[in-house]
C-alpha cells in the first residue's frame, strides 16, 4: 500500500473509530459506513493532510480510486 493510500485509510479509520485493518480499500464508501456528508468532511481532512486539491466525482467510490485520483493530480 502506498503512502497516499495509507494516509487515507488512517484518516478514515480514525474518523470511524475503527482499526485501519478493518478498512477495506476496495469496498464502496457506503459499505464502510460513510455517507455523503462524511465524505465531504473526510475530503477536507485528506486535502489538508496531504496538501493537495482534488474534485471528487461520482466515479470515485472507494479508497483505491481516491488514492489513484490524488496520485494522478500530483
Amino acid at each position: 500500500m502506498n503512502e497516499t493510500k495509507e494516509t487515507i485509510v488512517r484518516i478514515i479509520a480514525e474518523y470511524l473509530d475503527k482499526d485501519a485493518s478493518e478498512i477495506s480499500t476496495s469496498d464502496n464508501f457506503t459499505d464502510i459506513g460513510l455517507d455523503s456528508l462524511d465524505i465531504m468532511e473526510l475530503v477536507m481532512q485528506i486535502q489538508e493532510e496531504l496538501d493537495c486539491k482534488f474534485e471528487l466525482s461520482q466515479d470515485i467510490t472507494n479508497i483505491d480510486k481516491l488514492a489513484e485520483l490524488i496520485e494522478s493530480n500530483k
Partner: protein
Amino acid sequence: MLEGKCAVITGGTRGIGKAAARLFLLNKASVAVIATKDSEEARNALKEIDPEGTGRLFFYACDISDFDAVEETAKKITADLGKIDILVNNAGITRDNILPGLSKEDIDSVIDINLKGTMYVTKAFIRGMVRQKGGSIINMSSVVGLMGNKGQTNYAASKAGIIGFTKAVAREYGRKNIRCNAIAPGFIETRMTDALNEEQRSEIIKTLAIERLGKPQDVAELALFLASDRSSYITGEVIKVDGGMYV
C-alpha cells in the same frame, strides 16, 4: 451541569452573553468569551463574570463579521482549551429605523454580524465537534425573528435567518451527536433595550403575559439547559424566552 465541558460564547462581555458566561462558569465549564475589542469595559466584565478567579475563563478579541479573523481565533481557542463542546452564538447588534431610513451600512452591518457572524463562527468550530463526536450549538435569535417588528426589518431578517440556519445545522449534524437550537428572547433588560424610554417600556410591558421585562439570567438559564446533556434529545428547536409576548 457542565463539568469538564468547554464553551465558547460570542458577545460574552455584555447582557445575555455575560450572564451565560457567569452561569456556565458556576456550573464548572471552561468558558472562552469573545468580544469585538479588548477594552476596559470588557476587562471589567471579565472580573464580574469570574470574581473568584477560577482560571477557567478565557478572553479573545475578534470581529465575528471578519471571516479570516474568526478562523484564526477559533484555532487559538481550540488550542488553548483543547476542545469545544458548547458554542453560544450570542453576539448581535441593532440598527433600528423604518425601512426607507435604513442605510446600506445599517442593513449590511446587522446581517454581517448577526447572521453571517453566526455562520462564520459555527463553521469554524463545527469540524472540531464532528471530530470529537458531539456538541451543542445555541444560537441567539429573537422573538422579532418570529413575529417581525416595525422599525427592525434588518434585525428581524437577521434573526429569522438564524432560525433557518439553526434548523439546517441540526439536520446536517444531528447524526454526529451535535445539537443545534435557537433561543428567541423577547424584551430583555440589556443595553439593547436601554434605549427605550419609560413610555415605550410600559407600552411593551402591557403586551406581555408576565408583566415585566426579562433579565439576562432568564435567558442564560435556558442556554445552560440547552448546553447540558439534560437536553440531549432536543435539536432544531426554537424556544422563546419572552414572558408570553408572542403566544
